[in-house]
């Protein structure tokens, strides 16, 4: 049993990892067809992974409703929203769930998307505009020389990237563009090189079974 539960997944990850690397260097049709087939499989498993994510989200709220934890009433609203939308999705503008999605703009599903999801998602992050302004006044401080450089660079970019910068002086947009395309580029490339080396190292640890966190279940 331990073989099936632990060794088999590790072997599978190793074999698929090595195949994934190798087929990159092999232009032969056999390798490329294998890559295409594996990628197709991955897409299908990924679809189930998305279902898993949705299921665990709903389960979290369900457990709160069931145990009547603090704020469980709000969790039941999640089910209300989900239930309405889910029903409309199955309804599919009268076509049912086993044919391709309706693309009619009179579909009530589209109405829900446009009038609930779009305003809610769009508003959520715009709230931060207010908090940024408040933080700008109360907390964005040049506590250290480094923070001072950061703030000056931010102010040049902010003013240089909107038309009013060009009204004040042509140098401001020029300076903003230079900051973006030279020092900013340099730092971002440095970070990118470091992060990419880290990403390759993490992938290697997974393939060689050194990193097993993805298997879950208390193994490190």
């Amino acid at each position, binding site marked *: 049993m331990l073989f099936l539960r632990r060794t088999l997944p590790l072997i599978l990850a190793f074999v698929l990892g090595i195949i994934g690397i190798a087929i990159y260097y092999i232009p032969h049709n056999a390798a490329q067809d294998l890559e295409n087939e594996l990628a197709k499989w991955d897409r299908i498993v990924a679809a189930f992974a998305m279902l898993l994510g949705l299921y665990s989200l709903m389960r979290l709220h369900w457990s709160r409703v069931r145990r009547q934890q603090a704020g469980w009433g709000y969790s039941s609203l999640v089910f209300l929203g989900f239930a309405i939308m889910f029903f409309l999705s199955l309804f599919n503008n009268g076509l049912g769930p086993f044919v391709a999605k309706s693309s009619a703009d009179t579909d009530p599903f589209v109405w829900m998307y446009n009038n609930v999801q779009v305003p809610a998602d769009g508003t959520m992050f715009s709230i931060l505009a207010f908090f940024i302004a408040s933080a700008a006044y109360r907390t964005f401080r040049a*506590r250290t020389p480094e923070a001072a450089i950061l703030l000056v660079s931010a102010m040049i970019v902010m003013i240089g990237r909107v038309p009013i910068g060009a009204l004040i002086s042509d140098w401001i947009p020029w300076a903003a563009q230079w900051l973006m395309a030279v020092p900013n580029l340099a730092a971002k490339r440095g970070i990118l090189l470091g992060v990419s080396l880290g990403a390759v190292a993490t992938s290697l640890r997974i393939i060689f079974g050194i990193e097993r966190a993805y298997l879950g279940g208390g193994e490190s």
Partner: protein
Amino acid sequence: MRKILIGIVWLLCVIPICAQQPEEVKAFDAPNDAGGSITVTWKRIDTLPPGTLYHIALSEFPEGPFHLVKKIASETNLMSDAPGTFGHGTETSQYHFFNITAFPDPGDSSKTVAIENGKTYYFQIGTQLPSGDLFFSNSIPAQAFGNLFNQTKLNNFILGTVFSIIILVSIYMARRRTLFIRRIAGLEALDEALGRATEMGKPVLFTHGLTGMGSVSTIAAVNILSRVARRTAEFNTTLRVANNDAVVMAVSHEVVKEAYLNAGRPDAYNEDIVFMAATEQFSYAAAVDGMMVRERPAANIMMGYFFAESLLLAETGASIGAIQIAGTDSYTQLPFFITTCDYTLMGEELYAASAYLAREPKLLGSLKGQDIGKAVVLLVLLMGTLLSTLGNQSLTHLFTAY
């Protein structure tokens, strides 16, 4: 005399023909592909008048008929245009090349027929002068087949192999002996903040990011939490750990409990230290903010992967005058932490701090291996620029992704 004159006239006629007929024509399977393509190459002729065209012709039989595949201008398609396949040698500017993947259907000229693998085709290159005269080379046979290694990716393969070996060896080494890691200034700042909270007799607040236990950032955050809990247990300072994920909360419970046990203060541990603030992003931020305003912690420690809530947390923390130490590998949120916190662990520093504290070989070894990788990249960049400035592009070419 007459014979000599005839000879001269004959020579005058033949020499241009010889000079204008493509030479050194070669046809072979196009390298680095799955087949279905044949490359023809031939020597560049410098003396051609402007407007000359090359004809590339193909036949399925040695005796013909030959079908015109393409006409190209005589200045184009030099081997030096495709350094990935032909390299950067000086001679590449002296040869033309062309890849043939299909030819016009002899039965229906509006359609094309693809080159098949394993079948012999015959090729001719012709020079068409502006006057309309056409001079063809001899015909050359070739077959297409699938290749087993993409030579243009050789540098990628070598770099990948070498780096993999470095990482794996470093992890192996880290299991045998301790590896040196530089002092992480953020950890000292952390101790200072905990010290000050103790002096003031106020609590310490620890917040995780929003990601679950599967993320490297959260694992690093938990390692740091272990250190924080140990210190607060020793100093007898109140600790509060805010959570938004049930699994992370369960792990945090264990980690804090163990830290209190190791510090010899199991009595000081209670279940209220680690609590669930809220599960949704903004409600979580609002709940933690509310708690900060009520309990006024002296130190506010934020570690892990943060999203937009970082600003809400750090702003409130700063407004209550707490010492704030943050650490995140979320580069979009880093600027907000840098301007609102007293010390910030930036990007990989979070992992390094965690590796430093946890002393786990796989993390330390990996970090060490990546350092070697960075050192190599750094040297290559400096050497490459120097050589390139001196006029030698060889190192730059070695690192070109084709």
